[in-house]
């Protein structure tokens, strides 16, 4: 029943191909919509806001996901042939960051049409999108040589459930780590939205947490998806999410918590610089990868902690 077409697992249904990855994404979207409906009721969004957000979010998310991939993926060296072939959807090629940013833009548009405060809609969307991420990451299991790390060396990790066996070596299943993170973030954000009074705070927390965790996971990934040489473009976009949140929070608190706001802004280039140095060390040195990633976690935790402090009313 199941067969592998090229690099993706799927099944034939009445002559049409149904891809396992697409099915996982669809299930993620259904989960996302279900949670969005629930949170929309909690936050008393206007009737029609949620379905309109769903439609516009899906369309914008799909289009931006495809466009960003075609613009930024280095698979063919030049973006032009990919852009020219962007309509050939079944050829594959989608960007998670593009999908999420597009969904947020769609939500903003829906809020504007509905004369709803966009920040309230984005607050409801943020935890819901984590379910889309969960579905998509679990779907990566069905893509060959995808969602995996550099080769694992050593005795411990290759024999755990976190490792996948390739033709020659073992690799860390980063898609599992990202899926688990999405679940945790969803729970954290749902708890936060129930407590928050100021619109936009939950969305800013999502940018901080998702961005910071994605910087780490994208560093672990080594599957040539949207990479130019050793640079992961999705890692850069993840860092931009953290930076955007810190800038908004710093601006908000510039008068009342000036020192902390300045610290937040200084932390952006500091985190970027330290991150680049750590990436260099991971790629070029023999320093323990466990140690380097532990430092990486601390480097990203610091701006998140400052952002959370700035967020407090």
């Amino acid at each position, binding site marked *: 029943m199941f067969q592998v077409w090229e690099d993706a697992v799927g099944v034939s249904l009445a002559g049409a191909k149904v891809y396992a990855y697409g099915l996982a994404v669809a299930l993620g979207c259904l989960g996302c919509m279900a949670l969005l409906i629930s949170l929309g009721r909690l936050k008393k969004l206007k009737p029609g806001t949620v*379905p309109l957000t769903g439609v516009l979010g899906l369309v914008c998310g799909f289009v931006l996901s495809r466009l960003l991939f075609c613009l930024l993926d280095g698979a063919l060296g030049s973006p032009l042939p990919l852009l020219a072939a962007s309509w050939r959807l079944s050829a594959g090629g989608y960007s998670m960051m593009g999908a999420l940013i597009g969904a947020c833009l769609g939500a903003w548009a829906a809020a504007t049409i509905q004369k709803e405060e966009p920040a309230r809609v984005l607050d409801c969307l943020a935890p819901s999108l984590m379910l889309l991420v969960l579905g998509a990451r679990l779907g990566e299991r069905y893509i060959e040589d995808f969602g995996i790390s550099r080769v694992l060396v050593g005795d411990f990790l290759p024999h755990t459930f976190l490792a996948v066996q390739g033709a020659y070596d073992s690799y860390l299943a980063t898609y599992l780590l990202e899926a688990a993170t999405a679940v945790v973030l969803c729970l954290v954000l749902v708890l936060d939205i129930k407590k928050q009074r100021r619109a936009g705070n939950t969305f800013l927390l999502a940018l901080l947490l998702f961005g910071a965790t994605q910087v780490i996971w994208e560093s672990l990934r080594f599957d040539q998806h949207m990479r130019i040489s050793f640079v992961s473009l999705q890692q850069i976009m993840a860092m931009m999410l953290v930076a955007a949140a810190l800038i908004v929070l710093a601006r908000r608190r510039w008068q009342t918590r000036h020192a902390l706001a300045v610290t937040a802004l200084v932390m952006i280039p500091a985190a970027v610089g330290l991150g680049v140095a750590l990436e260099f060390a991971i790629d070029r040195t023999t320093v323990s990868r466990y140690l380097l990633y532990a430092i990486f976690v601390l480097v990203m935790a610091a701006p998140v902690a400052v952002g959370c402090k700035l967020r407090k009313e």
Partner: protein
Amino acid sequence: MNRLTCTLLSVLCVLLILALPFVVSSPNLLGEAKWELLDEMEDTAGWLVTSAKAEEELTLTEEAPEGFEPTEGAPVYELPIDFTPGCVPDPAGFSEDGYVDDSISVKLETREENGVIWRIAWVVISSPTQLRTATAGKLTGSATALVSSMAEKNNAIVAMNADYYSNDPAKTTFEYRMGQKIRNKTNQKKDMLLIDEAGDFHIVLAQQRDSQQAELDAVAAEHEIINAFTFGPALVKGGELIQVSKDYGYNPTGREPRSAFGQTGYLSYVMVIAEGRGESKGATHQELADFMYSLGCRDAFNFDGGGSATLVFNGEVVNALGGSPRVQSDIIYFATAVPAED
């Protein structure tokens, strides 16, 4: 918004979601789509180069190369031109510094000159089919693996890293592996190494597109291309030492670990690693060229250096690595063609 509109929007939402499994195939470009798009891109060479077809698994030939002296009366076997591993080497053929059987001779040597440690593998084979390449995954994929892992699985007696073709950002390269075309684009900035059906090297230098294509045409007209690489710089060509340009790329004048592959005669080769970033200070491109020339190479080519420079003998890494083990998309290796006794 009225109820009807809400309902219609909800239905539309569900329909869009239900369409996703039919449309969203993969977050990455699928292999077949990548092949098609690469072929459609501009600058593809207009001529077709025939891929070598897999031959019968074992055939007997009577020729033996100069410089190699198999056991008298022993047949010369060949391996198929595909990605099947080489024959399992005879454990009795291994010594501390090499391997010998009726089809292959490998000698390892270490030299220290002017603060640089050179690891050298001299190889003589009886059939050009014993000069092989292996990839970590599909030809258009992005799979990577350790050089030592690929060498072991392919029964390599000696192996080294190649040009890590899947990592090339520009993709304007000319790449063949075991007779299979990966890309056949010209490149005005990088030199190319082509290995033909007789195991002979053909070096094509970086130059204007038309003249480079003419050279590639000339090689393709007379030979079958089995393996081709785009990296460089070329170090020795046609018996002449090349003065490497300081603008070539890959830190040409810096002292780095380096890897190079040379041909010294018919079915006679040398794999060389210059260690660096440690006890050994590394080499510049010109020093590498000078060294390959001094070894008697008639053609020699620089491959990926730095942390990628890896020489593996009998499954073990021979050189001190310039960092943690770096994965590669492909390797070059030599295998025995003598089938293991049951």
